[in-house]
């Protein structure tokens, strides 16, 4: 089994040339806290592998060497009751190993949990909802969902992202294995975590604490961009929603149906907070928290029959007639 561990880890390390892998392996770290954990995990793994080899060999040796053989006489083997020296040895050595493991863990706990941030570090407030993620950038004053955009820390520049974790309903857990270990989002509690990605790309993760029916499709991705691309994205997100006269009919449908109770589109009267902010819906690659690609066909299906994409999600089937449905989808498609 340990061999399987090593094969997997080394295989992944060798097989992935550059850019994040679509497989969120914990042995493929691309961010400072994930790196710290990765180094500790290799250390702990090697100690455990050594103990395994020693003790497993002892078991196999004893089991094989001291088996009863047909040629043996019938008398009982020497009756040994114990040995204090031996007992002392196999008490003290494990204690020493435990001390080493404790110190190594404590060091990484301190490095990750007690990290200090520069005052200008990027702040994000992540709020877990059944079954999607809300990301608010308080300094920039906008809200988005499910796809977290952050700048890369490269070329000697350190841009840590400090993430406040809240929950609107039940427990959730923020886990993007290549960037950091998981931290839970718990109602009535403020948790925090941080990432400092070193490589541009899209990193996938998902909710890691059972949160209800659609826990499985509460996916998330982190889009790591160059600082310039990130600033461009911020400017786009800060802009109010596009008001195109061609889709005024769809906007009317949106604002006169239940859509506006749950969703926000800045610049319109829709300011619900129960569902994701749709101001720049089409800037996102997926809908339903990563459950389906964000294209016209899926948007139509999602409005008409959400259970076809994500059964058990809290998005209701909107029961619109064909005309309203077409107009609404056209409007949503215009929210660049």
């Amino acid at each position, binding site marked *: *089994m340990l061999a*399987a*561990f090593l094969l*997997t880890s080394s295989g992944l390390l060798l097989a992935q040339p550059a850019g994040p892998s*679509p*497989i*969120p392996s*914990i042995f493929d770290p691309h961010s400072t806290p994930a790196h*710290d*954990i990765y180094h500790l*995990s290799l250390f702990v793994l090697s100690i*455990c592998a050594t*103990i395994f080899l020693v*003790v497993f060999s*002892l*078991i196999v040796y*004893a*089991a094989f060497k*001291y*088996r*009863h053989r047909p040629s043996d006489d019938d008398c009982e*083997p*020497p*009756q040994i*009751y114990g040995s204090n020296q*031996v*007992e002392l040895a*196999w008490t003290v050595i*494990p204690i020493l190993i*435990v001390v080493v*493991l*404790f110190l190594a*863990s*404590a060091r*990484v*706990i301190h490095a*990750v*949990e007690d990290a200090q941030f520069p005052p200008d570090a990027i702040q994000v407030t992540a709020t877990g909802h059944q079954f999607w993620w809300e990301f608010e950038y308080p300094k920039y004053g906008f809200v988005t969902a499910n796809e977290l955009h952050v700048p890369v820390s490269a070329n000697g520049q350190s841009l840590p992202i400090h993430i406040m*974790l809240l929950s609107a309903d039940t*427990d959730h*857990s923020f*886990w993007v294995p290549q960037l950091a*270990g*998981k931290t*839970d989002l*718990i109602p*009535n*509690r403020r*948790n925090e975590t941080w990432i400092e990605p070193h490589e541009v790309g899209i990193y*996938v993760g*998902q*909710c890691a*604490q*059972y*949160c*209800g029916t659609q826990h*499985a*499709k509460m996916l998330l991705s982190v889009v790591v961009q160059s600082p310039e691309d990130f600033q461009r994205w911020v400017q786009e997100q800060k802009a109010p929603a596009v008001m195109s006269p061609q889709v005024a009919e769809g906007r009317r449908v949106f604002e006169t149906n239940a859509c506006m109770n749950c969703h926000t589109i800045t610049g319109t009267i829709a300011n619900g907070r129960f569902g994701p902010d749709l101001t720049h819906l089409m800037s996102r690659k997926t809908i339903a928290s990563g459950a389906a690609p964000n294209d016209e066909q899926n948007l139509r299906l999602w409005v008409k029959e959400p259970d076809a994409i994500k*059964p*058990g999600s809290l998005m209701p089937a909107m029961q619109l007639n064909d005309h309203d449905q077409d107009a609404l989808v056209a409007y949503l498609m215009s929210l660049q």
Partner: protein
Amino acid sequence: MADAQPILPPMIISPEREGTRPMVQVLHDWIVTVDHKKLGLMYFGYGIIFLVIGGIEAAIMRAQLAVANNHLVSPETFNRLFTMHGTTMIFFAAMPLVFGFANYLVPLMVGARDMAFPRLNAWSFWMSVFGGLILYFSWVGGFGLYGAGSAPDVGWFAYAPLTASSFSVGHSTDYWIIGILVSGFGSIGTALNVLTTTFCLRCPGMTLRRMPLLVWMNAVTMFLVLVALSPLTAAQVMLLIDRYLGGHFFDTQAGGSAVIWMHFFWIFGHPEVYILVLPAFAIVSEVIPVFSRKPIFGYNIMVAATVAIGFISLSVWAHHMFTIGMTSYANAFFVASTSAISVPTGIKIFNWIGTMWGGKIRYSVAMLFCVAFLCQFLIAGLTGIMLAAAPFDWQLGNSYFVVAHFHYVILGGIVMAIFAGVYYWYPKVTGKMLSETLGKWHFWLFVIGFHLTFDFMHIPGLLGMPRRIYTYDASRGWEIWNLIVSIGVIFQILGIVFLVLDLIWSYFKGAPAGNDPWDAWTLEWNTTSPPPDYNFAEIPVVLSRRPLWDLKHPEDPDWKYE
């Protein structure tokens, strides 16, 4: 003392089998019985039935996860399956199985005629049964929001606020609460009973330092039951108050705390692991010496390590909560306490190896399961050390790695030890030997299936697959591993079929066992197989830990060396 001998009364001839009485009378006897042996067997049968039910639930989940984007079961059903699988296996399979062993063996091994409180014993058993029935009634009698007839879907750990009345509508969560509450009363009764039996009913000469290790380990287990089940019971009552009387202990929407529930649950939940694993250690500590033909290596330190595990296990609970954002100091403390428990556990593994060392090991099926137990429990302990390192746990926690880890503990450790116990004591219980051929089929099929399933289950966890998801996308690269894991289940099912065949076939056709088929050393082998209602015609007197060794080797008795 030079010519001292243990006083072991002559064995009694087994009474005629009472096969001629009408069925209804036999059944009535079983229902009203207060005999610890019959209750022990009923615990065992009850545990096996729920083991099979919980296994079927697991098999359905594995079928769902075998391929990516599968649509075999709905997400609602899947969530119910893992909730019921976990609750069933812990409370209604593993606990009855280990309590069955304690019930049957503790009075026999201390030379007593029954438990201290036989009626309490019967009451405890029937409370456990009712608990299981209440929980399972929820499949037909519970109702939820949608799709009437619903089992609970809040996970076996039932984290707040998912259990609050606003998130869990209907009665399914109430069945979960009351089922466990009721069976918990039964467990506390059993704990009191076993402890009293151990401390008050030992036969003359059996000092605490001459008590068989099985009895010692069960005594520590029962202490843990008393201490650990109380917080769970309290939390269940608080949750009922929240749901029905407008309390706000765990109701986060009204200012309650989700974290308090976690503390309550895990301060029960972690000792619970040791409540299950210590009786498994107990079985292994009896079987390995007999088949190695040597006394247990380091009896005193085995007892000390057991007591140490008991104490330390009460201080490690928050390692289940490394990801909830505790301070770095709290995390460091629980890293230290959790790693510390590996020391006494390691001592036990070394002592079992020390017992085999220099022996003449006879590989009966019982001993094969013990060797498998040793190897698998070693790996379970080592993955436990990885999880104890909090930062590593931030990655591994709530992933399939953890699922693989604790199934290694429970199935690879506890259940394998229980199988060893079944093969070892079946002759005593029935008077018939189990078939070694069928037993070896059971052993190899089950071990192969176990390793296919749970060795490969570590890997998707390392690749970022979280627990409790009913489906996943093929792009994540988890599919091949999940397929192998699911294939292993088929082998395990076949193994269990061979076990059941063996149990039934041997009962009717097995070779007669005699009183002491393994040439063993503890008191239960000094009475007939099966033992009479009163266990011993005369209460025995012992001089050492191995009274039957003294009897068989008067030239070299144990008491000279102890």
